[in-house]
């Protein structure tokens, strides 16, 4: 990976030459305190390249004693850095638990929606219902719900479901969206007891190749 590094571009004429001259130092302004090596390259660029590119991708540094010396000058720092890089996950679980307990105390239930039972005046919080409906959409292979809003319609108990979706393109989108709509509608009516007037679905994102999802087996994709 050599993002933003001008030296990462293959520069034909310089290829396969040991010592190099030319525009390396001249075509880019040096940083404050930079240094031009005897071979003409800037110290800052040699360091960048050494850190950003695999050694095999940088034959110029490998074959130039000045560049090599400059890179070796950072070896001690690099060795000590490795220990800092080691991720320490010991405190992570406790930390996640603390965060989620604070988050849990700050629930955002959203508006209350009527269930299809006007006599008893039953209601459900929008976000609780949205969560169930997202999960229903997620059961469709190659589909993942993004946003889900529920909007009361008219004077009665009707509710409109408005959902955005990420979907894979390995089969016709129309069929998949149809299947999602059916799953959402079924869950809204059967699981929640909502009176659904419509389920609007917009596909807003293409899902990368679906990992192997088997019924009843959640993937372990997130590690």
């Amino acid at each position: 990976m050599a993002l933003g590094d001008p030296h990462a571009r293959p520069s034909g004429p310089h290829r396969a030459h040991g010592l190099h001259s030319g525009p390396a130092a001249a075509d880019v302004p040096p940083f404050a305190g930079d240094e031009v090596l005897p071979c003409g390259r800037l110290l800052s660029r040699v360091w960048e390249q050494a850190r950003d590119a695999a050694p095999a991708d940088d034959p110029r540094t490998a074959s130039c004693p000045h560049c090599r010396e400059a890179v070796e000058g950072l070896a001690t720092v690099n060795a000590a850095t490795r220990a800092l890089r080691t991720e320490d996950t010991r405190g992570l679980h406790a930390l996640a638990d603390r965060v989620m307990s604070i988050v849990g105390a700050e629930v955002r239930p959203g508006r209350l929606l009527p269930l299809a039972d006007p006599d008893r005046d039953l209601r459900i919080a929008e976000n609780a219902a949205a969560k169930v409906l997202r999960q229903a959409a997620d059961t469709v292979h190659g589909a993942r719900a993004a946003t889900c809003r529920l909007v009361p319609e008219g004077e009665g108990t009707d509710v409109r479901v408005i959902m955005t979706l990420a979907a894979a393109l390995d089969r016709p989108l129309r069929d998949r969206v149809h299947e999602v709509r059916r799953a959402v509608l079924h869950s809204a009516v059967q699981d929640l007891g909502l009176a659904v007037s419509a389920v609007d679905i917009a596909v807003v994102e293409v899902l990368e190749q679906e990992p192997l999802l088997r019924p009843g087996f959640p993937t372990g994709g997130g590690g």
Partner: protein
Amino acid sequence: MTERTVSPSPEGDLLGRDLPDGLLAVRAAEGDEDSFAILVRRHGSSLLTLARCMLGSPQDAEEAVQDAFVSAWRRLPEYRHSAEFRTWMYRITVNRCLTMRRRRPPPLSLDVVVEPAAGDAWSQPARSAEQDAATAALSRALAELDVGQRICWILREVEGLPYKEIAHVTRTSEPTVRGRLFRARRSLQEAMGPWR
């Protein structure tokens, strides 16, 4: 109907583990805690590493990351996805660390320098005492860097972020990031001279 697995069981969050950050962030913004919990677990450990390098102490780092996540949860409904969730989280955490440092400037004693993660001691060959001392020296040198240089260096060398993302996190430009990185490398190289 196939695969009817709708249930508010703990599996609910497992089901989302393959989801990309953007989708989880959208769900979390609508109040879905399970999606947020996945984001916390996914990014917590690299943010902890960042905060540990910034602040020196594991306890302070945990506090900073906890505050950063809680702040993110509160701000998610207004989060406009102009940046990747990860970039946004890095920015919140860096800012949180800076605030904490202002509140209590770190005394630079040996026991507050960044402790190398000890959790891996079982899985790696024991590091030599010399290597530990070199790491402690690097941490002290890091603490003395200009704060802008320190942030850029940690994000690049420890977290492995590309220049463009570092520029987003720090609200600067890529040339600025690269200039700061160079000066940081230079200072650290000088500080580590005795260890060569």
